[in-house]
């Protein structure tokens, strides 16, 4: 087990999540892709902490990443609920107003 290997696994998780976030149409599936990307960031941060700077302040960064994950998920669910209520849909293609 080395830092390179941990970062490689984290990169794989991030890339898989990016694929999901870009390719999925259902809002909940896009959120799953984003979660996977943050999952990779979390693992990379844990690896950096263990191999490069095992000081307690490094763990605080992981806590912040976890908090960001929670906020992303809660707001995503709220927006998807609003989308469903207003437009009876859960697809990103039906909510592309800002892309025009």
């Amino acid at each position: 087990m080395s830092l390179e290997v941990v970062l490689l696994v984290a990169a794989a998780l991030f890339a898989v999540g990016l694929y999901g976030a870009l390719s999925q149409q259902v809002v909940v599936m896009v959120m799953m892709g984003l979660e996977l990307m943050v999952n990779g960031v979390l693992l990379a941060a844990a690896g950096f902490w263990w191999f490069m700077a095992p000081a307690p302040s490094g763990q605080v960064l992981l806590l912040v990443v976890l908090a960001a994950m929670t906020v992303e998920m809660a707001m995503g669910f709220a927006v998807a609920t609003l989308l469903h209520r207003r437009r009876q849909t859960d697809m990103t293609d039906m909510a592309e107003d800002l892309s025009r």
Partner: protein
Amino acid sequence: MVAAIVFWGLAVVAVAAGVAVFVVDSMARATYALALSFIAVGALIILLQQSYLGVITILMMVMEMAVMAVYMVMFMGMNPALMPMDMTHGKKTAIGASAGVFVLLASGALLIPWPERRGVPAEDITNALGLEIMGEKMLVMAVVGPVMVATIVSGVVLAAGRTRYDRLGDDLRRRPADDPQPGGVGR
């Protein structure tokens, strides 16, 4: 040696479950796959001696996936375990972008001459984290707290069907206003 085997096992499970999220043909299975990926990453974090953070990752994500499953039953209007689906767009672009990002990140991870492991973690890592967030890094937690409260408030405002801005006047039994834009008082 044992740690390396466990690490590789968990790494394969984490990535394979992550891939399965977008390969399986039902959203329920995708949710379970994502939960499995998070459990594997939580276990990897525990393997890197950060037991507290690993455990909260697992607990938080399992609960989150449970909420996600309930959410799908609420909104999809079908049995998500039985209904196959393929709702994607721009697949080739997405594959190209993610492969490019992986090559970039992986080459960075492999080509940078990382120094040897340095520093020694505290004897009781969880205790040290507790002292840190209650001491020097209290500002971080003091900011995270209000952000969480703001998330709760804005989540409820967005998700609620009828909020204070859509109230029907003082009399809650009044019929809603027939305005082109919602938000007016009742008549």
